[in-house]
């Protein structure tokens, strides 16, 4: 546990020691503002909720999170620090978890910094705060799912551009799972149970059901098991590199 925390602290410190943190947070805040107020038409809707704000999160994360996660392992390999880290008394699990949690906590900080939107909506009307809080939680869980994909992909290649593109594409598939673009790929050849399973993997549908203010255990289980599975694969990727 101590080891995981030490890695988490180091990683989090690294975000703020480099411009990564500031660029990411500023772009995230600006874009979520633009999407909410212009595209989402928060004012025009005349409703005191943050639906327009949260609707764009899956799309915002789609390119911002792979940009954040692409360096997680790839950078360690490039700089040679992976050799240092993996020859310290650190298990692969501790390293994977420490790195992931740091990135997740960081996106949590970025998400928390959108609080002016929440203040605005409370100032403008009688907002449904429990739903907003739940939506924030849903958004945070979804960010974790994106990150787990990105972290895993990053462990398999040292090229950061490939990592970014691959993470983007895989996340896109999961965002759009259940939509014709993805389903049509599997229709006709894959067994129906697989198609149904893919249809239930959609980030969008799980996220939307949370943002509607309904806590469904299945949505929570989905995100946590999704993260767990990708982190497991991440660990396998790190382990595989040891055999050369």
């Amino acid at each position: 546990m101590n080891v995981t925390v030490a890695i988490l602290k180091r990683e989090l410190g690294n975000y703020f020691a480099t411009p990564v943190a500031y660029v990411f947070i500023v772009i995230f805040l600006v874009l979520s503002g633009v999407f909410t107020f212009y595209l989402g038409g928060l004012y025009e809707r005349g409703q005191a909720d943050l639906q327009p704000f949260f609707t764009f999160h899956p799309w915002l994360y789609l390119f911002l999170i792979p940009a954040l996660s692409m360096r997680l392992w790839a950078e360690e390999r490039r700089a040679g620090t992976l050799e240092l880290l993996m020859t310290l008394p650190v298990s692969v699990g501790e390293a994977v978890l420490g790195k992931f949690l740091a990135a997740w906590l960081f996106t949590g900080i970025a998400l928390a910094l959108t609080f002016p939107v929440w203040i605005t909506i409370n100032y403008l009307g009688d907002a449904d705060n429990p739903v907003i809080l739940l939506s924030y939680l849903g958004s945070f869980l979804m960010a974790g799912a994106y990150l787990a994909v990105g972290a895993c992909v990053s462990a398999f290649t040292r090229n950061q551009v490939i990592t970014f593109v691959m993470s983007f594409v895989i996340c896109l598939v999961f965002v759009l799972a259940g939509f014709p673009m993805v389903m049509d790929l599997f229709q006709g050849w894959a067994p129906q149970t697989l198609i149904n399973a893919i249809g239930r993997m959609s980030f969008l549908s799980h996220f939307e059901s949370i943002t509607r203010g309904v806590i469904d255990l299945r949505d929570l289980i989905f995100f946590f098991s999704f993260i767990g599975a990708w982190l497991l694969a991440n660990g396998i990727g790190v382990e595989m590199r040891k055999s050369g």
Partner: protein
Amino acid sequence: MTGIPTDTHAAIEVIALRKDFGRFTAVSDISFDVHTGEVLGFLGPNGAGKSTTMKMITGFLTPTRGRSRVAGFDVGQQPIEAKRRMGYLPEGAPAYGDMTVTAFLDFIARIRGYHGRERRRRVAVAIEKANLGSVVHKPVETLSKGFKRRVGLAQAILHDPPILIMDEPTDGLDPNQKHEVRELIREMASDKAILISTHILEEVDAICDRAIIIAQGSLLFDGTPQQLVSMSSLHNAVKLCFEDKIPEGAEACLRGLNEVIEVASDTVRHRLTVFPGNGKSIVGPVTQRVRDEGWRVEEIFVENGQLDEVFRRITRRDTPVQQVDVS
């Protein structure tokens, strides 16, 4: 049950270690031991498999075959236990560049499980030993190569490990820095088992009790630096520097001595080099002959041998060795 440390184990045991990368064999069935109190120099040309071997011993790479044990713990079976007991300076001394020296060492100390006052003490001692006092608040990436190397060294010795593995610890350092690092290694040597790789031969003479040489992935020599140097054809050769020119017939006269098998002359610098057979000491008979003949000799000295030459001969078997065969 394996992996229980007992006194019968060497500090580092390498048993038939092999690493294949696809069809390329980087390390081929290498075995050796390092005992506590011993500094073992790991020699070989670049690309010989030194780093790959070290990466396997430290658990960064999984061997294709064979195994290694550190402090009695099998690196494959109990990697965490083994890693707790060793300090490792990887090639190029990688470190997290954005961190300051103190922050980096503090991170290492945390990972190594130190808390509070003990952690601060460990960091302070490592900084002092590696002579990093002047740069503690600078980010590692802004440091010179020499300082970076010392940060890597500080990281490796922070927990005062019984086993220390260093991949080219003095590479890229200036002569003063090299000297400091060697002093540090020598200081620590008495109660540790130290394995250092190098391609600098003088280093072997300077700090190692034993040396092994590998090339193309195979172990070619295992012995003391003195044994290594005695394999040189120059070992115990006697060099005579004459005042003006080499006396006529001197070369043939010396060649006539019993133990001498070759004499080389350097007419420009008025020198004769007398090579002994089997590396025997011939300084006695040679000086006797000089006295008997009444040659006016300015200087006589006995060569110890050249590591370079031995190294070349061992690692490149296809190339013929100088004039004399010592075997």
